[in-house]
């Protein structure tokens, strides 16, 4: 290798020596544009070809460091693939967990909605002794301008405070009905429970059918 490198080195000099002869040749007219490109390409090729023989490249390529560099690169590539696989597996696992959680959420949402269903709430309220108030028993308050002033006065007096905790009224437990053991007890229990007001009175109101019993002249063929 060194011998070859040494032998090649004079080549550029030889080319340089040839140039004056070229300059001496008569030329009809200067045409730089068409010749510039091949010359540049030729010079670049020579320069690139020379890189391989340059001392720096030779020192680098012969260095033992390369063994380590190449080894590291190979290990790195393998490690990269292993990491990629590992990340894929881990991401897949996470996606699986996310899917599982989404499924659980969907089931839990259904359970919550089931628990909050109107029917269950009514049953729970009924067990707690709550009843729907009679329409006339509900008191509606009409707010007016004086209410704000009254509230302000109460705040000043300290009768109400901002942020005071709501104290719920004491809950009176509803005693369970004792088991009926004898007819007398049944009679007592029956009399104590107020009879439910019948929603429908039996007395029929004045009826209003348009009845003649004859066949309808118009629209008689209409089947509802």
């Amino acid at each position, binding site marked *: 290798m060194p011998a070859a490198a040494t032998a090649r080195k004079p080549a550029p000099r030889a080319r340089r020596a040839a140039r004056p002869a070229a300059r001496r040749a008569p030329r009809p007219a200067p045409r730089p544009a068409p010749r510039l490109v091949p010359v540049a390409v030729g010079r670049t090729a020579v320069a690139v070809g020379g890189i391989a023989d340059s001392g720096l490249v030779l020192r680098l390529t012969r260095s033992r460091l390369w063994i380590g560099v190449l080894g590291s690169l190979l290990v790195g590539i393998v490690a990269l693939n292993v990491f990629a696989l590992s990340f894929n*597996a881990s*991401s897949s696992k996470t996606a699986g967990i996310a899917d599982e959680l989404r499924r659980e959420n969907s089931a839990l949402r259904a359970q919550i909605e089931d628990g909050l269903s109107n029917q269950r709430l009514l049953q729970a309220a009924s067990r707690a002794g709550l009843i729907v108030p009679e329409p006339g028993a509900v008191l509606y308050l009409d707010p007016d301008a004086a209410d704000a002033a009254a509230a302000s006065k109460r705040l000043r007096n300290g009768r109400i405070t901002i942020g005071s905790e709501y104290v719920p009224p004491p809950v009176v437990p509803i005693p369970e009905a004792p088991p009926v053991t004898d007819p007398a007890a049944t009679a007592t229990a029956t009399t104590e429970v107020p009879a439910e007001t019948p929603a429908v009175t039996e007395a029929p109101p004045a009826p209003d059918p*348009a009845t003649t019993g004859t066949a309808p002249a118009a629209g008689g063929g209409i089947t509802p």
Partner: protein
Amino acid sequence: MNLIDRRVGLMFASFVALLAVILVRAAWLQAVEGSEYRADARSQQTEMVNVPGVRGAILDRNGNALALSEDAASVFATPYQVENPPQAAAQLARVLKVDGAGLLERLANPDSGFEYLARKVDLPTAEKVQELRLEGIGLLPDSRRIYPEGELASQVIGTVGIDNQGLTGLEASEDEVLRGTNGEREITRDALGDELERDTVDAAAAGADLGLTIDAAVQAATERAVREIGETYEPEGATAIVMDPQTSEILAMANWPSVDPYALDEAETGDLQNMATSFTFEPGSTFKAFTVAGALEEKLVKPSTPFSLPPTITVADRTIEEAHPRGPVTLTVADILAQSSNVGAVSIGLQLNRERGGDAFDRWIRAFGFGETTGIDFPGEEQGIVLPPDEYSGSSMGNLPIGQGLAVTPIQMASAYAAIANGGILRTPKLILEEDGEATETETGERVISEKNAARLREMLEGVLEDGGTASAVEVPGYELAGKTGTAQKVVNGTYSETEYVGSFIGFAPAEDPRLLVSVVVDNPPYGSHYGGTVAAPAFGEIAKFALPHLGVAPDRVPAAP
């Protein structure tokens, strides 16, 4: 060349030859047999999984779920892979709580490559199936419809099929909104079956939620009232509509018999229909309000205008009489409505056509929306039957003013009465409040009668629930009520039946500024209890008693002292 050089040369040549063989083999494997091996590897390592797009929920106006979807799984088998079918069938039958013989029949079919063993099982059950670790048994992700309120509004909500496609009701008409888009996922596994990679091929998209105008609590109260009618009178069917007359938003739409959404196979086809929009009937006396409305608008009568009424009135070949025979009487227009006088309503209708042209009555009833669908967002709405004036017979005007000779639907009646209740504006009944969280358009409506005449009608209709009216037994403490009863004979074989009726009641409250309108229609209650005032009006009272305080409607009168 010495011996060592020759050996080195030989070895080199051998290596070159070996390399050439390897290269040729590699080229053969990759170029010629490559596609086959790639396909084999793909089938062994990767798996395409269908990801179901969850169907959107149907919510009431307060966000309570009436129908929603939850994840589920379908259990399938690859029968030829099942090692011991009888044992597998027995194990699966215990977990799936199904008949083992049926399972075995499907598992023991060696020619089949795929059999569903159970569709849409819940996740805990699916997990138990997985824990059995049976060869040839697998799970497919799926979703299933849940109805937290059970039978509530089942005919309105509708049904979905096995592939989660809408079949009836809103599930069908709003299928495009509710339906999710299924996705596909590719899962790569290693030799041990552990998941290495999961790629989404097509992303699944969940369907949008649908918010209804229905109020679940009012719906439940309405269904209780309708069920009570059904259990007490055992009619062929019954329906009730609860509406906010100011906006025409439907708060409840109930039918009897109801349908269990989890047992659709047990329901009769007719029971799946929403009577409120599909039942056509002759309305009878509830229609008299529109006869009076036309006459008021044409300035022919006032509430106090007296009519001298004979016991009967004959129009062409038809004689119309009152429900209860009476002598000649003078009744005001308000009395005619309150007492539901047939002769009086026919007299007003005849006067309307006589003085304003032969099609005046027809114009007015069409203005209230009869003869065409209301346009409610519900599939299969009937339009009723209203004959054009040129097809009237001589006696038509003896029938039409009293609600005979034409057919309407409960929703048409409710919509038209809402116009009277809200001051004269006819709006399309509204059932869908929100789509995917966005409010649907609110219609401004169209004025059909003046505010003054609407108020007059409301006042006249109060008389129906007062002493002497046809629904005087109904009251809601604290509230002034208004409404109208109807008892119409059904047409059987072209003749008005003497034993089959449709009883109905439409009322609203508070009478002066109505916030609640209730329409109750009962199809063919037993003869004797067929009057609208008996069979339908009490249900109105029950519904109003719950709904008025629930909706925060303040009473408009002080309850009478006991």
